[in-house]
């Protein structure tokens, strides 16, 4: 049930965050604690790999919206990759699927 996050730096000023586990009220704090420091760096692109996430609730969405807000105010990229059907459905009901930059794979999300 515990969540795991893995950071990688595939290019300069680019970081990928791979999340493994359910994102709910008990784990979204850990996701925020990992993402927030990235917003303060000189990062130009953050890619969140959601392939290991089969469940996300509104607290998880809220955390990702913070990334979106950072990208808008810093002319940076905040991209979501590899959503599972369950997670995609939640984004759809939240009417946020077209608001985020969403990619089928991490590789596509990494392309400039």
């Amino acid at each position, binding site marked *: *049930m515990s969540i795991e996050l893995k950071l990688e730096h595939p290019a300069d000023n680019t970081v990928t965050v791979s999340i493994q586990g*359910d994102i*709910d*009220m*008990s784990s979204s704090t850990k996701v925020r604690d990992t993402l927030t420091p990235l917003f303060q760096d000189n990062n130009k692109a953050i890619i969140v790999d959601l392939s290991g996430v089969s*469940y996300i*609730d*509104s*607290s998880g*969405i*809220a*955390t990702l*919206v*913070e990334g*979106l*807000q950072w990208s808008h105010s810093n002319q940076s990229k905040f991209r979501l990759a590899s959503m599972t*059907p*369950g997670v995609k*459905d*939640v984004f759809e*009901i*939240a*009417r*946020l699927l077209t*608001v985020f930059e969403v990619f089928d794979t991490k590789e596509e999300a990494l392309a400039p």
Partner: protein
Amino acid sequence: MSQPIKLSIPSHPKYLGLIRKVLQELLDTHEVPEETARRLILCVDEACSNVIKHSYEGPCEEPIEATFFFDGEDFKVQIRDYGKQCDSSEIKPRCLDTIKPGGLGTHFINEIMDEVSYCTERAKGTLLTMVKKLKCELTSGQEKDKE
């Protein structure tokens, strides 16, 4: 109507996974299609998160009681807490036009469920009743199978 399944957990986020597992298992037993099951689980998780955040104003040892009923073609879930009461008209989603964090839980519940009502006519706490009509869902699931 058959005997309900009841689960009572302390008001703490660490038990949300447990309540989701129980509901998943129960919906599986009743052959509710996967997508519908996922959405019902989301609603129950959001309702319990709101109890922890708003009724009990943070994690504590007070109970959250969930009761699941299968009543013919209806799936009904009740979430009972013994925390702070509020005017049920205050429990509503914000306007979703601005993109900002928060305020999505009640939107999910209202979008997914067919009936939602909050009742505070009791000494303490709130009883949330949510109903989902499974008939169309079950039929569309069967239709898909036929394809």
